């Protein structure tokens, strides 16, 4: 991997990390959605610098769509019932998770292989998705269908009471 790709990788990693931290600490729908899209930009940059251009495009679209959903201004805010102590314990657990994963990455006896794929890989990934692992792709497609139907049903709004009574 040349220096340009390495610089792109580290800059993108910093962007993704900063976007994630901003998502955690920014308030407001719009800012949170924007921070999520920024995280997606960083993750897409990481994928692109690792010769996974097709995955980068898909992940960028998915993150921007998720950011747009989160930035939607008119959804009801639902507060979780967990108290401050449990939230702090969760934060400590996330730090422990990072320490454990980083330790495993440093201490692991990792194999190294030469990569022969191209920079984008859309044809190869498409062949894997639709020919080699068609069942997994069908399963994810079914999951997306169920989630979108569920979201559409949940989004369906009741007509206001005064409007309903007027129509009667």
């Amino acid at each position, binding site marked *: 991997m040349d220096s340009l790709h390495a610089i792109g990788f580290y800059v993108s990693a910093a962007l993704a990390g900063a976007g994630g931290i901003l998502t955690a600490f920014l308030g407001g729908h719009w800012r949170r959605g924007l921070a999520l899209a920024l995280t*997606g930009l960083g993750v897409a940059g990481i994928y692109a610098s*690792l010769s996974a251009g097709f995955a980068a495009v898909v992940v960028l679209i998915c993150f921007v769509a998720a950011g747009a959903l989160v930035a939607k201004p008119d959804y*009801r*805010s639902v507060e979780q019932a967990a108290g401050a102590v449990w*939230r702090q314990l969760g934060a400590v657990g996330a730090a422990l998770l990072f320490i454990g994963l980083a330790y495993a990455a440093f201490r*692991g006896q990792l194999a190294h292989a030469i990569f022969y794929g191209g920079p984008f890989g859309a044809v190869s990934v498409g062949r894997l998705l639709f020919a080699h692992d068609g069942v997994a792709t069908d399963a994810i497609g079914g999951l997306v269908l169920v989630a979108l139907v569920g979201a559409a049903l949940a989004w369906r709004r009741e007509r206001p*009471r005064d409007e309903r009574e007027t129509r009667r």
Partner: protein
Amino acid sequence: MTVTLVSVLFVSAALTAIGAFIAAWKRELTAALCGLPVMFAGAGTAFVGVARFGAASGAPLLGQEMAVLLAVAALSAVALGVGLAGRESPR
């Protein structure tokens, strides 16, 4: 300056931990849902890194395929979660 599998796994661990932190820290449900795609992106980064640096045999782009599927699954989970959270209470 170079990139190795260890540095990719380190970034992946950081993204996963940040996603877990968002999910645990945010009080509002839809804000906590934002942690889900970040966690999935961390897992996807590990898959892509292994596909780039460590896949010696088999299908070398299997990790990229997993990253694509994870991103789509994360988006559908966020859509469902925001839809359920945005549902108006019965009048």
